[in-house]
């Protein structure tokens, strides 16, 4: 039973998060920061694009370094 629960969890982790958890965490942080700052007068539309500008190269660097590429 425990093995099946683990397999179920592993499937959804792989389906949603994939092979680099840093991207998933970075996306959550970027949206949380956008939501938090949206209650102020600061424009917040740029936060997610900047996160993508950082996350994509970082993730590629991590994957090529560990030889997944």
């Amino acid at each position: 039973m425990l093995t099946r629960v683990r397999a179920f969890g592993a499937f959804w982790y792989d389906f949603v998060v994939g092979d680099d958890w840093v991207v998933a965490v970075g996306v959550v942080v970027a949206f949380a920061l956008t939501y938090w700052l949206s209650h102020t007068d600061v424009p917040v539309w740029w936060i997610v694009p900047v996160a993508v500008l950082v996350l994509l190269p970082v993730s590629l660097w991590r994957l090529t370094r560990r030889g997944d590429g």
Partner: protein
Amino acid sequence: MNAGALFLAVFLACTVEAVEATTIVLAAGTSRDWRSALRGVLAGLIVLAAIIAALGPAVSSIPLSGLRLFVGGLLLVFGLQWLRKAILRASGYKALHDEEQIFRAQADAARAAASQNRAGVGDWYAFTLCFKGVVLEGLEVVFIVLTFGSNQHNLPLAAVAAVAAVLAVVGLGVAVRAPLARVPENTMKFVVGVMLTAFGMFWGAEGAHAHWPGQDAALPVLVAAVAAFALAIVAGLRYLRVRAAAPSDVAKVV
């Protein structure tokens, strides 16, 4: 986003998934047993229908801003995954997705596996291979349709685009009875990765209460910007590969 862009985005994304599922079914059917393979496809479609019946009403009852934040976040994570793989393939760091090679590997593995009669299915291996292929790839199709369709308040059009993509790919697969090697899958994955990333950024940020400059006009700008950024990374990685390979080439000549 207009209806044409919604149709195109869903059609392209679902075509890629359908090509992968069709390759698996063709490999199992031609190398093992068509009857068991098609039963696996049918069982997979029944599971997918149950998931749609459960998820469809749930998704449409979520408030729009919460839905956009959740869906935008998932699309962005998915899009960055696709884009990363597409960039690595385009720059030569990862082997190109070759349906012919995948078909051969699947067919070889299928031939090597022992035949087993279980639960009234003549060939259990062919059945489970097709069942898994249809459920896993189909789940991605369902996700794409529900997220794109519900965000744009046009689930029927998203569903029509997905059905059109699946029918086109399956029809082609049945006609040629061979892997769909001529479908430009790597290019399509690159385009889909760009679209998922741009839509995920746009919807997710809107769901988090951001206001895009130019409102809906920001979406095509995001698509173009993500594409340009990804292509620039491909060019950079290719340059690094050539530069890294150069010293060893010189050593070979010497």
